[in-house]
């Protein structure tokens, strides 16, 4: 019995046409083909999706949580980046 674990894969599911693939979780599998099959079995058994992406977790590069202050806080004070400073004419609906 080998103690080597299978690699971890991140699973992305597109729930319907026109929507983005969204991250739904992760699983272990020996290779990409079986990762897709496992994702199908684990994450779409209740009709959650119409398309699957799997990416080996090794290939995901993440931002460093300790950098969060300098990365994300500066934008908190820049509300003008939201397009909310326009007068909407009376005749426009659904905005």
């Amino acid at each position, binding site marked *: 019995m080998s103690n080597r674990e299978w690699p971890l894969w991140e699973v992305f599911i597109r729930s319907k046409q026109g929507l983005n693939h969204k991250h739904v979780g992760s*699983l272990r599998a*020996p290779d990409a*083909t079986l990762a897709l*099959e*496992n994702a199908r*079995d*684990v994450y779409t058994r209740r009709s959650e999706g119409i398309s699957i992406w799997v990416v080996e977790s090794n290939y995901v590069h993440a931002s460093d949580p300790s950098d969060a202050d300098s990365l994300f806080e500066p934008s908190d004070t820049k509300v003008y980046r939201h397009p909310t400073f326009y007068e909407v004419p009376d005749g426009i609906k659904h905005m």
Partner: protein
Amino acid sequence: MKNEDLYNYVLRLGDDSLILGQRLGEWCGHGPILEEDIAMTNISLDLIGQAMSLLDYAGVLDGQGKDHDALAFLRFENEYRNALLLEQPNGDFANTMMRQFLFDAFRKPLYEKLLESTDMQIAAIAEKSLKETRYHLKHTSEWVIRLGDGTDESHQRAQTALDLLWRYTDELFFQTEEDTTLISLGMVPSMSEIKAEWSKTVLSVLEEATLVIPTNNWQFEGGRRGMHSEHLGFLLADLQYMQRAYPNMKW
């Protein structure tokens, strides 16, 4: 009985699905890894679902008002018509995958031919089931290839499984005199066609898996005539316990 020949044929299909589904379900909570535990129980539930459709239709052909529950829970061992292959114990993971693969490689071409059945109900069941069975075959083929062409240990286990199970494969293609009537009516295909397709799939997957077909080709049979191995009785005890202990219970 409305159509005894077709009843017997559909019963064989239904019993194959039911018994293999029940067997595979024994892995629930015991899979070698969570993902495969779910994969096997998914396949098990697909098979039980197919068994429900098939046994319901068998009940209709029988014409005595029996539904799938009556046929699944209230027959004795010698009234089951599943092939011996499907009642064999799970063994290790390689054994379970090999058994499933040998069956899926048989079921897929069978359903493909049954799509063209002149019997509308059979064609409809085949259409729904084929989608599931295609995936089962893909999944089990991948596993047989990986186990056979994997580590020394996985290769050895896969080869042992093939050596053990090969003797039950001929029985899958069992065909009766009465079946020839069904064949001439275009209701079911000839098993020789199915066996040709099965051989093609099995040979190519086993070759890729670097596994060798046993040279001793002595074959068991009996399940299709109701003569089962000792394993079926224990399986049915599990399957039927609730209905036998509490007749007519529903849940």
